[in-house]
């Protein structure tokens, strides 16, 4: 997929982030924005695994939950610092994601999707039944807040900062041999093998990284709410982050973020909580039917045209007429 090169996406994200941060004053909306930002991070992790590597994961929310519980356990049981918690929130999901991928990635991408669903169920049961560590049904409360991001407003800045860093890392990866390998193996594994790509190792690494992104989101969540319980980062969130990524355009770096914002705002307007699933499911099917590349897929031609009008073409790009030959 033709991406805007280098760090155009993170630059755009940074710009949008600063705009948001400056414009948002209403405390209610700041709270909404923090939640949407955390969901956008998990949606970004879907973008990496599904949009780039073609591996559908239905366990991204459980990975975030593992991140949240990791930092929660370190904070509540051991009095550890949030930074120690961050290390745990990155390493634990990354390791688990990597191992799961190692186990099943040789198979059909579909089998991977099912394996993640199984993993999600296992994580849920473990969280509910391991009372002494996770607090079982009660959950973990009293997770220490971040001293350096105490107010919701400061926390919002922190979430934005993390998003921009994650996007920059994501872009780095895409612009490397690994990003190209992921795109190749999503398209055709045999083609990637013929390039000499160690398919299992590379996709497992990407899957682990994607789980780590979700873990960081979980870390942000735990320290924001100061509490994490078994119902917080569950199946419904796994579904909505996939939906966010698909709506925005999973193969575009910024697609999941756009999807998270659009869906996050729309969700506030939905009348009944019970109908959330119907809305999610229906929208997902609709998007797959009419706009497979998501909102950014629709916007891309317009955007490219506008860009051509404003910015002179870089020398390497062939002129339009030559390109059609």
């Amino acid at each position: 997929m033709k991406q805007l090169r280098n760090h155009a996406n993170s630059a755009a994200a940074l710009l949008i982030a600063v705009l948001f941060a400056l414009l948002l004053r209403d405390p209610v909306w700041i709270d909404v924005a923090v939640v949407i930002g955390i969901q956008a991070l998990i949606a970004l992790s879907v973008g990496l695994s599904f949009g780039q590597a073609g591996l559908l994961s239905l366990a991204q929310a459980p990975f975030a939950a593992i991140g949240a519980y990791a930092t929660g356990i370190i904070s509540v049981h051991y009095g550890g610092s949030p930074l120690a918690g961050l290390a745990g929130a990155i390493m634990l999901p990354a390791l688990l994601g990597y191992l799961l991928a190692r186990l099943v990635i040789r198979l059909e991408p579909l089998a991977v999707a099912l394996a993640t669903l199984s993993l999600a169920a296992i994580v849920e049961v473990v969280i509910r039944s391991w009372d002494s560590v996770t607090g079982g049904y009660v959950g973990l409360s009293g997770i220490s807040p971040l001293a350096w991001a105490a107010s919701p407003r400061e926390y919002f800045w922190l979430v934005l900062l993390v998003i921009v860093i994650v996007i920059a890392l994501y872009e780095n990866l895409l612009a490397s041999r690994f990003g190209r390998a992921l795109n190749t193996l999503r398209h055709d594994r045999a083609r990637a093998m013929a390039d000499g790509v160690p398919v299992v190792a590379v996709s497992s690494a990407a899957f682990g990284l994607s789980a780590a992104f979700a873990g960081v989101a979980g870390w942000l969540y735990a320290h924001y709410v100061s509490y994490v319980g078994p119902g917080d980062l569950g199946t419904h969130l796994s579904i909505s982050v996939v939906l966010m990524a698909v709506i925005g355009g999973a193969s575009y770096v910024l697609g999941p973020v756009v999807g998270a914002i659009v869906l996050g705002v729309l969700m506030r307007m939905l009348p009944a909580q019970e109908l959330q699933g119907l809305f999610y499911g229906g929208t997902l099917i609709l998007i797959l039917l009419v706009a497979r590349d998501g909102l950014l897929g629709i916007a891309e031609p317009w955007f490219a045209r506008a860009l051509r009008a404003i910015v002179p073409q870089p020398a390497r790009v062939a002129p339009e007429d030559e390109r059609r030959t």
Partner: protein
Amino acid sequence: MLLFTEYVIRGLFLGAMYGLLALPMSLAFVTVGTIDFAVGAYALLAAAIGATVGGTLGALLGLAGALVASLVMAAVFVLLKRAGHHDTIMIALSSFGLAVAIGSIVLASWGSTAFVRQGLDAVWTVAGIRINPQGPINLAVGLALLAGLTALLFGTGLGRMLRASAVNAQGAELAGIPVVAVQALIFAAGGLLGGIAGLLILYSSGLDFTAGLSLTLSGFAASIVFGVSNPARGFLGGLAIGVAEALSAGYGSGAMTALIPQFVVLLTLGLGMLGAGRYTGYRP
């Protein structure tokens, strides 16, 4: 020993329903190369309607509801194919969306209370083991449907078309078989079989609005544990998982029991018993 036998028998009755769910899963996997995540949701919908209306009419209406839902999936499948999306993961993803939507409809219309109905009050005692007749009924229905499906697959023209589309869709298309229509039929069959399973569960252990995806997973686990290649293996897989769950519930903890299908899926996949080698690049 008596207790053990009772657990095993209870497991077989439970497993019959997993086996039933496994039938459409393996059909869809083998012929379309995809997974219908909504199979468990069809069961849920049938059970919800069946619980509300009750009796034979309720069962029929429940089946009709499940069938309608699966026809929606079949229509989505055809539309996706028409739009030129041959990516099986997109089909699976849309079935996932349907499963979530059905769960939400059930929650909004019936609330979060569990659906369960007492069918038969009688209790048989056979050699000291107490059996609710609903159990043998489940097993009998499961076996009858398995036999019917096997006969359909291996004894009729439609079955030949199904198998031909499974082995080589392109070749079947060239031979004049309406592959997309045949595959759409598979999704519809998922509604019927899933619906029957849902009704049986309604009259046995009961279920609530969250059951959709976990039933799909149990069905999938059943369909792959002994190999996905034919329906009989899928049904046998269902029985095996049912027995394992019953033993675990009897001797172990509830949490363990809930994890059995998940571990079966992960282990079977990890051991590479599903579709491994399909990506070695070799195209016969």
